[in-house]
């Protein structure tokens, strides 16, 4: 059983479209991270959210942490081909070990 469930698994869209990917769990998380990974490279940290209801923006990317700290979403506005990659969420459950648990990721392709 995956602690963090990400959806959708795959997403193929045209440049300029908006999209949202989700990261859900039945557990409460003390913090949650989002990463982007390009083929053949290691994941790169995008953001960390720690407070329930928190919203963070990184240019055209908007990250939200659920009020109950069990879920998170990543919204991309006007997607560009450079946004193509694997988006991974990760975190540690409250009261659990400090070791980050990763979701299986959402593979995004943005076509020009």
């Amino acid at each position, binding site marked *: 059983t995956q602690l963090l469930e990400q959806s959708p698994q795959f997403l193929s869209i045209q440049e300029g479209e908006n999209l949202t990917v989700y990261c859900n769990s039945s557990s409460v998380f003390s*913090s949650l*991270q989002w990463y982007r990974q390009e*083929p053949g490279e*290691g*994941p*790169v940290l995008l953001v960390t959210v720690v407070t329930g209801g928190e919203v963070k923006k990184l240019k055209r990317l908007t990250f939200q942490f659920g009020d109950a700290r069990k879920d998170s979403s990543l919204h991309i506005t006007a997607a560009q081909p450079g946004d193509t990659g*694997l988006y991974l969420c*990760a975190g540690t459950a409250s009261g659990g070990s*400090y070791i980050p648990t990763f979701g299986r*990721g959402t593979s995004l392709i943005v076509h020009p």
Partner: protein
Amino acid sequence: SQTIHQWPATLVQPVGSPLSLECTVEGTSNPNLYWYRQAAGRGLQLLFYSVGIGQISSEVPQNLSASRPQDRQFILSSKKLLLSDSGFYLCAWSVTGGNTEAFFGQGTRLTVV
């Protein structure tokens, strides 16, 4: 600033040969260190983690082992590679007692033939 180096970037090894992948971190002390394996561009499977020199915890029993001979050095090894050991291996570090933000190396693409 902190940096992490992982090498080699790609490796092709015959079945039954040994393996040694090395990872070093600069600019921080006493980091938590991790080895992950990733299959087919999907999620990360934690293989080993370490909270200090000589302290190794294994998450998945398999044909691999890890060692931490120095504070900022983490090594992934195998005595005899199997075909199933092929994959993309990632080293990462995080701050001890922090919010578990992980910082990754560039990865090693291992192909066992």
